[in-house]
């Protein structure tokens, strides 16, 4: 502890150089934070997907509908807590660029299966009472400035109403949720869709089943798929996590690209830090020799140099990561394309570990050199 003032003085010995080293490490970790956020966004929230939820889709493809009649059979299967269905609506709000997910659901069962979507009790009651009622996520409502009570028209693309082309909804509620919950979706009542669509009555998009015991997921998936085998609509059942993972994989290896870029960035700036440290130690060779003459041990000198480079890495990196966090708190900058936009605590942890690693690695070679310094050689040099 008593060496802190010494370290402090050494860090600021060359103010110009230290400032720019700090700044480059700052930028490196700002980028690291943002890249990890993008990576998480493209993995579509797979980390928080429920393991106790199974998704049943048509075996041929997600776009093929399933009959409504499966609901009863799913519900009666032992081990099933609650089964419900959803239907992709793909409606357009004003213009195609305003894309957001809009899905027809059964309100009561839906809210039970997805407890992470939080809706105030009075709004739930309003939804149950209003056939044209719909709820929107907080981010979605903010994006378009919607308030409870607004009337939202969507143009049907897959499903046409019996008259005209526009479906009208009453916004009866706004759901919220923790960080990492997709708050950009729009849910409305399946009975409204089913009664008013020109064709396709009695068809649903897919089923979501909440099961009592996640360990039974595989066995139950098999049971379901066997139950509907050789019917006109065979099914493919996966856990919600598996389903989202599969979907994320289709986008391609965005995660790998982001990690590759982060590695390039960190390597680049690690090199900057290392070369600065090396140079700063080289300049002070005679000084270290004097310290040794005064009785400083090699270890103390090693610790002094490492502390200096750790300080620079942690301060620069910490500020960078903090700014990334502040930026991410502002929400998705693309306006809806990246619904899950959070800097995960795990990535923050990895970032801090990387700062320590860069600090140690950058300081290691010069610190070892300074430790092994022979006083006579060093003092003779200049």
């Amino acid at each position, binding site marked *: 502890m008593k060496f802190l003032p010494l370290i402090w003085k050494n860090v600021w010995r060359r103010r*110009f*150089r230290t400032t*720019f*080293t700090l*700044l*480059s490490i700052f*930028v*490196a970790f*700002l*980028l690291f934070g*943002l*890249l990890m956020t*993008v990576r998480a966004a493209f993995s579509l929230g797979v980390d928080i997907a429920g393991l106790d939820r199974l998704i049943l889709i*048509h*075996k*041929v*493809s*997600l*776009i*093929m509908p399933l009959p409504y009649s499966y609901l009863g059979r799913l519900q009666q299967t032992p081990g099933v807590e609650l089964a419900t269905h959803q239907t992709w609506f*793909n409606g*357009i709000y004003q213009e*195609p*660029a305003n*894309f957001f997910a809009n899905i027809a659901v059964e309100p009561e069962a839906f809210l039970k299966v997805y407890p992470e979507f939080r809706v105030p009790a009075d709004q739930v009651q309003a939804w149950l009472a209003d056939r044209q009622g719909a709820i929107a996520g907080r981010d979605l409502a903010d994006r378009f400035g919607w308030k409870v009570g607004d009337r939202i028209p969507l*143009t*049907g*693309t*897959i499903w*046409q109403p019996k008259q005209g*082309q526009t479906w009208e909804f009453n916004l009866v509620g706004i759901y919220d949720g923790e960080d990492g919950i997709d708050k950009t979706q729009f849910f409305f009542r399946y009975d409204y869709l089913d009664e008013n669509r020109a064709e396709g009555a009695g068809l649903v998009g897919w089923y979501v089943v909440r099961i009592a015991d996640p360990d039974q997921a595989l066995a139950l998936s098999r049971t379901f798929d066997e139950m509907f085998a*050789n019917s*006109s609509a*065979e099914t*493919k059942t996966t856990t919600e996590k598996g389903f989202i*993972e*599969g979907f994320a*994989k*289709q*986008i*391609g*290896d965005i995660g790998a*690209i982001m990690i590759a*870029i982060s590695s*390039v*960035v960190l*390597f*680049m*700036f690690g*090199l*900057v830090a290392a*070369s*600065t440290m*090396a*140079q700063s130690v080289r300049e002070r060779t005679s000084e270290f020799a004097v310290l040794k003459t005064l009785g400083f041990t090699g270890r103390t000198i090693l610790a002094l140099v490492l502390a200096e480079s750790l300080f620079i890495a942690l301060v620069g990196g910490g500020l960078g990561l903090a700014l990334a966090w502040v930026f991410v708190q502002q929400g998705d*900058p*693309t306006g809806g*394309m990246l619904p899950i936009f959070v800097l995960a605590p795990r990535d923050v942890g990895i970032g801090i570990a990387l700062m320590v690693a860069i600090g140690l690695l950058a300081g290691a070679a010069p610190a070892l050199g300074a430790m092994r310094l022979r006083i006579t050689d060093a003092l003779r040099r*200049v």
Partner: protein
Amino acid sequence: VTWIKQTLAVIALNLRTIPARLSSSAVAIVGIAGVVVVFVSVLSIGAGFAAAMQGSGSATRALVMRTGADTELTSGLEGPDIDVIKQAPGIRREGSGPLASAELYVILDVPKKSTPDASANVPMRGIEAMGMDVREEVSLVAGRMFQFGTNEVIVGRAANGQFVNMNTGDTIVSGQNKWNVVGIFEADGGVAETEIWADVRTLQGAYRRGNTYQSVLVRLDSSDTFDMFRDWLTSNPQVNVAIRRENEYYAAQSVAMTRLIQTIGFGIAALMGIGAVFGAILTMYTAVATRAREIATLRALGFDTTSVLISVLIESLGLGAIGGAIGAAAAYVAFNGYQTSTMNFQTFTQVAFAFRVTPELLGVGLFYALLMGLVGGLLPAIRAARLPIASALREL
């Protein structure tokens, strides 16, 4: 004239001595090269995707879908609609009738070769016999055309490369459907190469679509007959359709994705660039600091301050150029032509494309590298020029 001579002499001196300061120069070079690699490679993804989408479709073809449908996947047309559409004026007619193909566009779950445990949404298209004549750029590169009325299919060249079980002789099993691959086709690198083509009537049966279709693709007499064709159909009360030129339809689908990639690419590059400039500043600052005595000597000998300033800038630019060239070359070697596929967010189907490191991108990357070098050299150059001769000579 002496000023120019002086300047050239100092520049030559600086550039020749770069190798002597290699380790500190490496920081700037590696930094700038890193930025250029990332910048060029991320943008090459966007360029490749845009090229695949924009190269698809032709202005002399029109795509007919139901009003309100934004993609083929969400469109629906009844059998009788098709008869009306095929009678419209403006369609090119050859011996056997109008060059028009009523089609179905569905999704088939097939794993990607890169992720064999997860299935991907591969687009599958049912075409009519005229479908091959409508698309003049399509030709078979292996095997033969499928026979209409059977469950034979042909697959695009990119689909063949990206997904499992797509070679001639393979059978694609999907639920209760089995599709025999009999040929592989190419389509000028367009998105069609990611598709699987089958007889539309077989597909109607397999996907329980009755006598319905999703789109009609027609070849126009010429690009100019589009308006006539469109106006006739939109004013016809028998059908409720929207008509787009095929190339515009595909180009519109690439907008969102291209914009996202460009936002990410430019954002990352801008931030990394700032960092690389810091690296360059440190390098040049070090170079100036270690050569303080040398520079002071030059000044004492009568070399002009601007000569010194320019020489430092040129050295920094030189580092930028070296870094930029290394980065651009690395990006080109590593990524140009790299085949991949991603999801088209408009249709939720796979699109295969190749990264394209275009000459423009390389140019932009190099320019950016020089800019970073210039900005990085500015402060140290001013410092060098302002160095007080007496104290610098006394230093050390």
